[in-house]
């Protein structure tokens, strides 16, 4: 990175954080600090979007598009359905009861132990998730730039802690707007420059045909195999439960839309996301597909992750690496030549020659992928426990090798902006939940608003340091964005089950739902350890288990208090 890149990066990050602190100075009452002021629907919509879209979304998703094509978009099919359910059923109840946290509602509907269980599940999974949020972009950026990992994690973590502690919920919302602006500016610039870098003469139809020929445009998969991770069924059914759990029961999202001035503002903010989420994810994945097309005409590295090449050279010998690289480069040259022939034949209208050239190009591509696979396996064999997350490094490698200075700074700023926006929302939610559901509920019931604001600031800092600690110890498996989704999937189903019982099954009481949730969570842990079904199904299974067991236990326990409690709500 050049001086210009650093000026863009540091200037934009410090500028936004400073503006957030200045705009929210003097927020001292609890309502303003935790719920924020009168946020309009558009700001809520952006805030909900920025909270979900962390740096992993923008770093790792193009890599998913590059490696696996558009299939990952199916997981977002559940978003519009989930947001409609939340806007119609969940939101009016949360707003009507004027709660600070979603788990406060569980306490009102059931009892303290169920409220604490919901809060506990949230704090565990979100506390760990906040660590991944900060670790994931840091590991990628430091590997590529050679920055010290720990220093990057600590410095970026501290900046978020400072402005979130200072301004609370409003500081999160205010900064998210500008952070999202930087993110979109960076991604659109990268997409435009990428399109300009595609070979001259390659039309849109050629590009799509080429990508489709390499199976990168298989956006919808109708397979009913539950072991397949991304299908239309897992997206619509599993994805709906995953998203319903995330948007409906995760305080980091609930807090975003509860900051709306009225029910209308909150609802429209959610509907904005319901309309925009699928196209947004499609565009990010498509960026990855276009990078794939770009590297069919330009030399691609054997490993996009520079650490992998280094590791292979160290543990094997540099000669072995050179053999792999030579074989890979040879297949690349062959592929590029054949794709040139394909393009010429296609434009000349010679379909037979075009098909022949494309098949030859696909064969060369397959040979290259086999060499990459062999090298990866050797790397793993020589370094047991090493994970090769090459897809996460595709976009950043493209940025560094192909984009001009200034734009590099803008994109790295975009990754940090995405980290800050989701991390700040997470810290704010963790702090709210700890303050309202533990501190004010269990420790100091007579605490004044001022004491709660002070406690909330301390809890924000504490959770910030926990997240930094998790990030410093994190060693991730698989693709980073999947790691976040898998972690969420393990806990979300049971959390959703608690809320589904609370909203819709009025005759079930606190004791039954509490023990049902404990049993359902145990079941999910067992499933995760023993089965290989796609993680997308866990929220559905967890929710269903919690609901069914709640009903069965309630029938056995015959909790006579439940109907009265329900009537009082």
């Amino acid at each position, binding site marked *: 990175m050049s001086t210009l890149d650093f000026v863009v990066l540091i200037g934009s990050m410090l500028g936004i954080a400073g503006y957030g602190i200045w705009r929210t100075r003097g927020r001292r009452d609890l309502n303003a600090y935790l719920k924020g002021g009168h946020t309009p629907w558009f700001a809520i919509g952006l805030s909900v979007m920025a909270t979900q879209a962390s740096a992993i979304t923008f770093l790792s998703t193009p890599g998913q598009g590059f490696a696996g094509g558009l299939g990952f*978009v199916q997981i977002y099919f559940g978003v519009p359905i989930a947001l409609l359910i939340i806007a119609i059923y969940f939101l009016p109840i949360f707003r009507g009861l004027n709660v600070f946290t979603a788990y406060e509602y569980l306490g009102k509907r059931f009892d303290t132990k169920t409220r604490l269980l919901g809060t506990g599940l949230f704090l565990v999974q979100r506390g760990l998730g906040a660590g991944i949020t900060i670790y994931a972009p840091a590991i990628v950026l430091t590997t590529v730039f050679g920055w010290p990992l720990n220093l990057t994690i600590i410095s970026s973590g501290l900046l978020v802690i400072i402005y979130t502690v200072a301004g609370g919920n409003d500081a999160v919302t205010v900064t998210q707007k500008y952070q999202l602006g930087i993110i979109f500016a960076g991604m659109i610039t990268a997409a435009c420059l990428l399109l300009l870098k595609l070979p001259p003469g390659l039309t849109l139809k050629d590009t799509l045909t080429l990508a489709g020929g390499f199976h990168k445009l298989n956006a919808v998969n109708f397979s009913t195999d539950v072991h397949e991770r991304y299908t239309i069924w897992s997206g619509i059914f599993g994805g709906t439960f995953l998203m319903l759990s995330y948007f409906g029961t995760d305080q980091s999202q609930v807090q975003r839309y509860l900051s709306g001035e*009225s029910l209308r503002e909150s609802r429209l903010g959610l509907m904005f996301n319901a309309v925009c989420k699928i*196209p947004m994810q499609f565009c990010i994945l498509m960026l990855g597909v276009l990078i794939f097309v770009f590297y069919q005409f330009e030399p691609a590295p054997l490993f996009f992750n520079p650490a992998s090449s280094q590791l292979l050279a160290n543990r094997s010998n540099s000669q072995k690496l050179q053999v792999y690289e030579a074989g890979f480069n040879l297949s690349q040259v062959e592929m590029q030549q054949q794709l040139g022939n394909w393009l010429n034949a296609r434009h000349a209208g010679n379909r037979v020659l075009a098909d022949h050239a494309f098949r030859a190009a696909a064969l060369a591509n397959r040979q290259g992928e086999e060499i990459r696979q062999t090298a990866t396996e050797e790397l793993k064999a020589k370094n047991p426990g090493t994970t090769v997350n090459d897809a996460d490094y595709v976009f950043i490698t493209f940025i560094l090798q192909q984009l001009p200075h200034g734009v590099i700074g803008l994109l790295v700023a975009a990754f940090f902006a995405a980290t800050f926006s989701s991390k700040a929302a997470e810290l704010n939610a963790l702090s709210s939940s700890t303050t309202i559901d533990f501190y004010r509920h269990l420790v100091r019931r007579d605490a004044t608003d001022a004491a709660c604001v002070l406690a909330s600031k301390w809890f924000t800092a504490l959770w910030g340091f926990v997240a930094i600690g998790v990030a410093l110890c994190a060693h991730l498996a698989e693709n980073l964005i999947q790691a976040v989704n898998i972690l969420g999937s393990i806990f979300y189903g049971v959390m959703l089950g608690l809320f589904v019982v609370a909203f819709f099954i009025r005759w079930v009481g606190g004791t039954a739902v509490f023990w049902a949730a404990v049993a359902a969570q145990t079941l999910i842990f067992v499933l995760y350890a023993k089965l290989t079904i796609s993680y997308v199904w866990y929220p559905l299974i967890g929710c269903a288990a919690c609901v069914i067991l709640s009903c069965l236990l309630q029938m056995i326990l015959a909790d006579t208090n439940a109907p009265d409690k329900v009537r009082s709500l």
Partner: protein
Amino acid sequence: MKHPNQAETSAGDTHGTGLPFFRTWKSVYLFVLASFVLWVALLILLTKMFS
């Protein structure tokens, strides 16, 4: 007497959305559903055309 959440639900549902083309919440929800169906249909079309 209405419960607070019922009060806000009905107020939210009966008051207009304040949007120029979607005056009722039902029309907003239908628009969201229609855009979802449209996106899925377009993605299926893309898959069928180029695979």
